[in-house]
């Protein structure tokens, strides 16, 4: 049985969901869920399938990707530290509802990873304890890793407010 078929069987037995889709590329298995079922699916993966480490949370802006039907894809990379199994979970989002439940209560590594995804893409994570910008200054107004933000920026660096010694 292929890797994907094994995962499919395992997860269907624990949590049936007709809207779930699976794909495989270069031997890596990907699970695509809808946003409403994300929280339950991730809890099941952590508690029943022992995926105890959240390796990465990231987002992809599919604006210029040929054949994409949605705007954003939020990607979670999971790992089972005992058996070494990996799984990638994707959720597709569209404007204006760019919100996803936060995974902080399941895996603490989601804290800063989600903050960075918010910082760069503007995706809000519900129930995140501290959803502030992480890398960029707080006054920064745009979401730079979106495809409609130019690589050279919009002059934010040039116009950054400078505090002189007299003011501070």
């Amino acid at each position, binding site marked *: 049985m292929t890797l994907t078929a094994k995962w499919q069987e395992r997860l269907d037995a624990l949590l049936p969901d007709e809207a779930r889709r699976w794909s495989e*590329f270069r031997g*890596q298995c990907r699970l695509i869920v809808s946003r409403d079922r994300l929280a339950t699916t991730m*809890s099941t993966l952590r508690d029943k399938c022992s995926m105890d480490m959240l390796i*990465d949370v990231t987002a992809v802006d599919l604006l210029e*990707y*040929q054949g994409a039907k949605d705007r954003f894809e939020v*990607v979670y990379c999971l790992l089972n530290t005992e058996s070494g199994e990996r799984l990638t979970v994707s959720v597709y989002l569209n404007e204006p509802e760019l919100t996803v439940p936060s995974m902080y209560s399941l895996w603490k590594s989601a804290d*800063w990873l989600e903050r960075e995804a918010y910082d760069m893409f503007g995706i809000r994570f519900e129930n995140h304890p501290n959803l502030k910008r*992480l890398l*960029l200054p707080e006054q920064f107004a745009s979401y730079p890793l979106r495809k409609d933000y130019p690589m050279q920026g919009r002059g934010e660096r040039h116009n950054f407010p400078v505090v002189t010694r007299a003011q501070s």
Partner: protein
Amino acid sequence: MPLELRDFEVDDYGRREGLWTLNFGPQHPATHTTLRLLLTLDGEEVVDAEPDIGFLHSGFEKLGEALDYNQYVTIVDRMNYISPMANEIAWHHAVETLLDIELTPRCKYIRTIFAELMRIHDHLLCVGASVLDLGGVTAFMYAFNERERIYEICERVTGQRFHTSYTRVGGLMFDITDDGIEMIRSFVNGFDKAYADIDRLVTRNRIFIERTRGVGVLSKEAAISGGATGPVARASGVTRDLRRDEPYLAYNDLEFDVICCRDGDCYARYLVRMLELKESIKIIRQALENLPSGPIFAPGTGKEALPEKREVYQSIEGLIHHFEQIMPNRQLSSERGSIYAATESPNGELGYYLVGDGSFKAYRARTRPPSLIHFALFPQLIRGCMLSDVVAVLGSLNIIAAELDR
């Protein structure tokens, strides 16, 4: 069942009186590189630490969408600048996974040798700098003396001391010469003395032990939940090493031990790094003994790999092939799909999530930086410790700001 806020722990230190804030600012000799900590202290005890990062943010991930797979290696070099070739090896490992390219045995062995040399490079710095922060200048000098020899090896083999940009898609920039191999061999033979110098000075040093034993303890559950990998996780009992669990390059053929500890304090992290130095020397010795001959680029790899320079300058097919590869309007296409591929970099699991859109540029080149994940663990490690322990814990985590901020 939504995930609710009541699952989170609540701090009640706001009710304590007499707390003061110390800005462990971005410019400070003990914060390795530019990162900022807002420490809330009760006398000398740290009650809370809020990290503030982003001083070195340079938009590397945005650049990844503008540069192609061979050009981006120069940017990737500059992330974990303490062990540059480790990042290059990780990046091209990810690209070769995406493009489904198999390396030649010689290329695998050379990359393994350099990955281990970079591991020695990084661990020497981490150990040296963490001891320096606690006041031991001599051990730092011993470590940096050895690192200088690795810089000379890099210069001999790749032409550059620091940001080597040595790997290419499907191979290396050029082959290693015999004098490069001799230099590596003499480095390996001379390393034991330097290791013994540092070891005798630091490992059983009363002052060092008192300052690092029991300080900054990371439990196994916190390490797994926090996503820690590499020496930081192995020092807490998480026995994962990608070189053994998901072997890549030549690690399948080489014998080495995975070093783990149970305590999870700063001393454990120091010990794991010191013992990993010995394992790296073992690996390099084996790889040098068994270095296969042959080409660097697999023949008939498909059009993704660059031809050898000799072919480019001496045959018309090589020249055409090179032109087709390099010119941006003629580069050959790749498949569409996305992967996550990671290697065991000296700092932990350095992974790249690559989305390919069929061209020779990444559509999304996400770096999963171990420094970011480990720095996020810092507040929980430092609660209840003294102010002077901040420096010890920060040094043991090996935070490199360029990888943290990208």
